[in-house]
């Protein structure tokens, strides 16, 4: 088995309805993603899920020197940022891609699938 991060890409700034343009859309995606996560748990592939606050809330920390340096984030300027992620545990990429397709449909955003753990 292997773990994959299903990273949800969203806008740089959030509004009244989180990263969604309307209350209806936000409610619909909450319901769909909730159902998807429940199914992950049932199937035994669930490891973790959470959303991220908007990127302007980030702080970049550099602790490599003698004293840590804190700067206002995000680290890289971009039009879109990671807005949340699932971590799933599945046998291979095909299974991770299948789940990511469902997740993308549920949260109405593009998803980047990256294997966890480097060499």
């Amino acid at each position, binding site marked *: 088995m292997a773990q994959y991060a299903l990273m949800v890409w969203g806008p740089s700034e959030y509004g009244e309805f989180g990263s969604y343009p309307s209350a209806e859309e936000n409610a619909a995606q909450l319901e769909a993603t909730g159902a998807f996560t429940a199914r992950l748990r049932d199937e035994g592939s669930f490891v973790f899920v959470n959303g991220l606050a908007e990127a302007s809330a980030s702080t970049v920390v550099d602790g490599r020197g003698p004293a840590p340096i804190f700067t206002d984030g995000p680290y890289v300027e971009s039009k879109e940022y990671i807005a949340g992620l699932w971590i799933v545990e599945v046998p291979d*990429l*095909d299974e991770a891609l299948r789940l990511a397709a469902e997740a993308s449909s549920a949260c109405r955003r593009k998803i980047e699938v*990256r*294997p966890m753990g480097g060499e």
Partner: protein
Amino acid sequence: MTDAATVESALIRIHHEEWARVVASLARRFGDLDLAEEMAAEAFATAVERWPRDGIPPNPGAWITTTANHKAIDRLRREAQRDSKHREALMLHDDSPPDPIGAVEDDRLRLLFTCCHPALAMEARVALTLRMVGGLTVPEIAHAFLVQEAAMGQRITRAKGKIKAARIPYRVPAAADLPNRVAGVLAVLYLVFNEGYLASGEESDPIRRDLTSEAIRLTRLVKTLLPEDGEVAGLLALMLLSEARSAARISASGELVRLDEQDRGAWDRALIAEGIALVRERLAVVARGDAVPGRYQILAAISAVHTSVPDARDTDWSQVVALYDQLAAIDPSPIVALNRAIAVAELDGPEVGLRAVDRLGEALDGYHAFHATRADLLRRLGRSADARAAYDRAIELAGNSAEVAYLTRRRGQLVG
């Protein structure tokens, strides 16, 4: 001692026939594409060394497989002694149950689906397929795509790295995913064929037979592995019917010859017969209502309409237009619409054809064939100045040397 020429020709044949099988079975057994590729190459190198002296073994394929297996085991033992964890990390993953679609029990199919996995970039799929399944060397593939050897080597290494790191599975996809995944494999093979059939680059030969014949060889292999798939048969037929005309497609002076001006006596009758037989088989299946034809089957049927008549004037254009209508229904792209308009021009005259072509101007302004088509229709309508401008654009955009030669001559023949 065996005659060197005999050994060499046997080796070429056996390399063609056995390479994919050897790599695929090693990859399955050891779970490592890199190891499979390297050991297969080493086994062939050993054969080059030994066969002239020892003679060709009675079962050359089995000899290669056994030799490659031994080499792989030796290598893994050495590495296991050095670092057992390292070896573990290199293992591809396969805990899939035995092949779910039963009839297809061939490791080569696993290999093909892995190399053509949609998570890999298209150019990586092409390179990996030619290397791992086709057995072409990295320099051969680099040359075929006009890329530096080092860059091509890196492309293949990176692709294998992603297969390992992301755990792209080494198996035949589940039945539900199969049509899509087969389409992905066929797209890779069609791209290889097309790069050979209308090669790009000023310095390049206009037709690269090494690529077209490799694409046909691999498609034949897929046809053996998936005999019931209509689109596989369709693509093979399409390639055969195109390849059959290749000798007549380029003139002695290196110019592209249009279909209606080709010397049909120079066509390869055997390839045409084989292609048309495949098209007929598929038509029979479709007529029984057992399947809906996909794009390759329709394109092959169009090609069959052209190649089944001895004279271009006998072409059944209404049937060609009807087939393009079918194609447009499943693929409503402007390029399909352009080809349909060309057929319409033959059926209803250049004026009607030109009207249809002109509607595509916005979508196809950067496409050489759009301007070449317009140029030809304008020429036939006697609008020389407009035709000249269109030829200019087409020449500017065309990448194939024979096509540029043809368009330049046509432009030179305009009167007024």
